[in-house]
């Protein structure tokens, strides 16, 4: 409906402009020349031009044009085909033609007449239709003599007078309107139409796109926060169906996510309860080695459950950001592992303030350092900052990850050494979770090769608040 209305408005606007152009631009006038006057003036002009020096002829022609309200040109060569209309078709101009031809016999080789309209260079012939059809036969014929009654020669016309040297003097009526005046109305109309249509369509488009923008914004927001964003498509009644569909979809997705979270929480509870019981029963096992193996196995299962639930749950995402001491965090992680006799070292400042989600970021770095130890046996952690960003490097001496497998390594549940062996442990979520968290904290993570070429170097960058007082 709206589209139809807008188009109607645009068309009406253009038509009104056209009408206005017609009304306000003065009508063209048509000149009518007297036969006797034409004969005299053209003969004088032709003689003057042919007697003048060849170089001066054009200038002379121009001068004569202005004086006599005609357009007089001198052409060295006939530039257009010589097609003279048959005499009976042009009764009045024919008499003028014959008059000039007989008067100037000797000086002038011939005189031609054409009836053309249109701007020079774009002219076309006009044909006459007589009523009664035998009108030409009733009119006086023969060259126009001075004693004959005068006749009227209306524009347009074109007389051509060929001199003895083959050059031509062309005479046309004066063009009433300058080029500019002829083109201007057309130009104004076109411009006006363009402006009118652009205005109307821009206005309409913006009106309609704004609700669509809001829709897109709501969809993006929902995708990011997974919280239902009510869509307000006020002003867009045709799109109400989209609004409804959008809101329904959000509700459905939210319900799906809630169900999934609930299911995971229930699974978690059940699995953890089961493991608790098993763990307690393991205390009854007397054989030290067997007991250790049982306990280690159960701890590994617990780690896998935790990792999967962290990945699927929302907790890590919804934690609010706070000011944390990044250096202290990394030092603590390294010290805790060193206490368990893992070779982990830290180099960097004792303090560095950053703004991020504390528990999530701790989790991300813990995953990365754990991976280093798991696959590389040792880990070197370093922290530095420059240009408003903190750079954390975690290096190990393990097999490393080739560049082409880097993206694969980040995929959920993907373990690059394909066996899914429990020797190396984990479910393949460490890097995935770490990257998720780092990106939610406006940072970036990249895998590469350490300077000593063997092993993996993980580089994490995090933005630092502007006024960083470590």
């Amino acid at each position, binding site marked *: 409906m709206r589209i139809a209305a807008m188009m109607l408005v645009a068309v009406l606007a253009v038509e009104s402009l056209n009408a206005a152009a017609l009304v306000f631009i003065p009508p063209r006038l048509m000149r009518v020349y007297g036969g006797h006057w034409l004969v005299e003036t053209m003969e004088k002009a032709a003689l003057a031009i042919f007697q003048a020096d060849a170089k001066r002829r054009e200038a002379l022609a121009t001068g004569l044009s202005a004086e006599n309200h005609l357009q007089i040109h001198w052409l060295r060569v006939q530039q257009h085909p010589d097609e003279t209309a048959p005499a009976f078709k042009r009764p009045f101009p024919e008499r003028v033609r014959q008059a000039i031809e007989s008067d100037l016999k000797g000086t002038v080789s011939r005189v031609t007449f054409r009836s053309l309209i249109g701007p020079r260079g774009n002219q076309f012939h006009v044909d006459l239709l007589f009523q009664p059809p035998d009108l030409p036969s009733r009119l006086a014929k023969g060259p126009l003599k001075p004693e004959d009654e005068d006749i009227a020669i209306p524009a347009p016309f074109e007389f051509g007078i060929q001199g003895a040297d083959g050059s031509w003097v062309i005479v046309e009526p004066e063009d009433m309107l300058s080029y500019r005046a002829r083109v201007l109305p057309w130009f104004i109309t076109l411009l006006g139409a363009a402006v009118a249509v652009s205005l109307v369509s821009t206005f309409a488009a913006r009106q309609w796109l704004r609700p669509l923008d809001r829709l897109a914004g709501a969809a993006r927001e929902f995708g990011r926060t997974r919280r239902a964003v009510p869509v307000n498509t006020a002003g867009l009644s045709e799109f109400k169906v989209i609004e409804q569909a959008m809101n329904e979809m959000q509700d459905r997705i939210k319900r799906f996510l809630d169900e999934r979270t609930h299911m995971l*929480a229930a699974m*978690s*509870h059940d699995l*953890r*309860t*089961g*493991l*608790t*019981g*098993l*763990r*307690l*029963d393991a*205390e*009854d096992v007397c054989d030290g080695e067997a007991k250790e193996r049982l*306990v280690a196995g*159960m701890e590994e299962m*617990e780690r896998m459950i*935790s990792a999967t639930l962290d990945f699927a749950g929302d*907790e890590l995402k919804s934690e609010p950001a*706070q*000011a*944390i*001491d990044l250096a*202290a*965090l990394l*030092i*603590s*992680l390294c*010290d*805790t592992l060193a*206490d*368990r006799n893992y070779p982990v070292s830290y180099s960097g400042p*004792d*303090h560095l*303030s950053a703004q991020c989600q*504390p*528990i999530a970021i*701790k989790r991300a770095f813990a995953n990365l350092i754990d991976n280093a130890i798991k696959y590389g046996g040792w880990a070197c952690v370093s922290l530095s900052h420059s240009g408003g960003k903190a750079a954390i490097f975690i290096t190990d001496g393990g097999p490393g990850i080739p560049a082409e497998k880097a993206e694969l390594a980040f995929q959920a549940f993907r373990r690059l050494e394909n066996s899914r062996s429990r020797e190396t442990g984990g479910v393949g979520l460490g890097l995935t979770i770490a990257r998720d968290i780092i990106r939610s904290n406006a940072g970036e993570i990249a895998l590469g090769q350490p300077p000593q070429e063997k092993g993996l170097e993980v580089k994490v960058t995090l933005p630092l608040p502007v006024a960083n*007082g470590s």
Partner: protein
Amino acid sequence: MPNTPHILIADDDRQIRTSLARFLEGNGFRVSAVADGVAMFQAMENSRFDLIVLDIMMPGENGLSLCRRLRAAGKVPVVLLTALSTHTDRIVGLELGADDYICKPFDPRELLARIRAVLRRTGDTPAPEERARPASYEFEGWRLDVLRRTLRNPEGTLVELTAGEFDLLLTFAGHPQHVLTRDQLLDMTRGREANVFDRSIDVQVSRLRRKIEADPQAPVFIKTVRSGGYVFCAGVVAGSQGAPG
């Protein structure tokens, strides 16, 4: 067996009840077990208990509200078993008056250590008010949140401490201006994590100094005492329950 502590286990899972009961009995406790909140309060009417191990996720009344009721009703210390490691559950439980918590699945020896620590702490001072530890300690603009186990510097920035460092600082904050020998510190901080005594107190102190001292080489808070100990030299103000972390 007059002095054997009597522990009440409240958990809806039968395997946990029987296995945990067996484990605790094997470690010198008398144990009773119930499956829900109603049975728990009934049991408390009939016997006197020294400690209650309470599972948060039981059918019927919510574990946290049971905890609140227990606190209001009397002086029996409570250790919570939480199945989800959600931080909110933990914090809320402690704010409601539980004495400690542990996440399932737990290392039974760790639960044992915590039960013993709680009993030791509450054995001499049965009154709940006196038994309660402060929710926070403040010194020179630093803020130690006991419930959340966080430390903030005077600018409000979170400074991460390892478990050992946190327990050590907690001990220092609880005894400001007192000279504490290494043995005393060892004894007071042990009980939470088994690995605290794997690193000597000296190493823990030097790590802690790196975290909180402006110049770790010239410490202002934790000063070494020549006769073999340390003293926490800051003025400490204990914060009450419910203060914002």
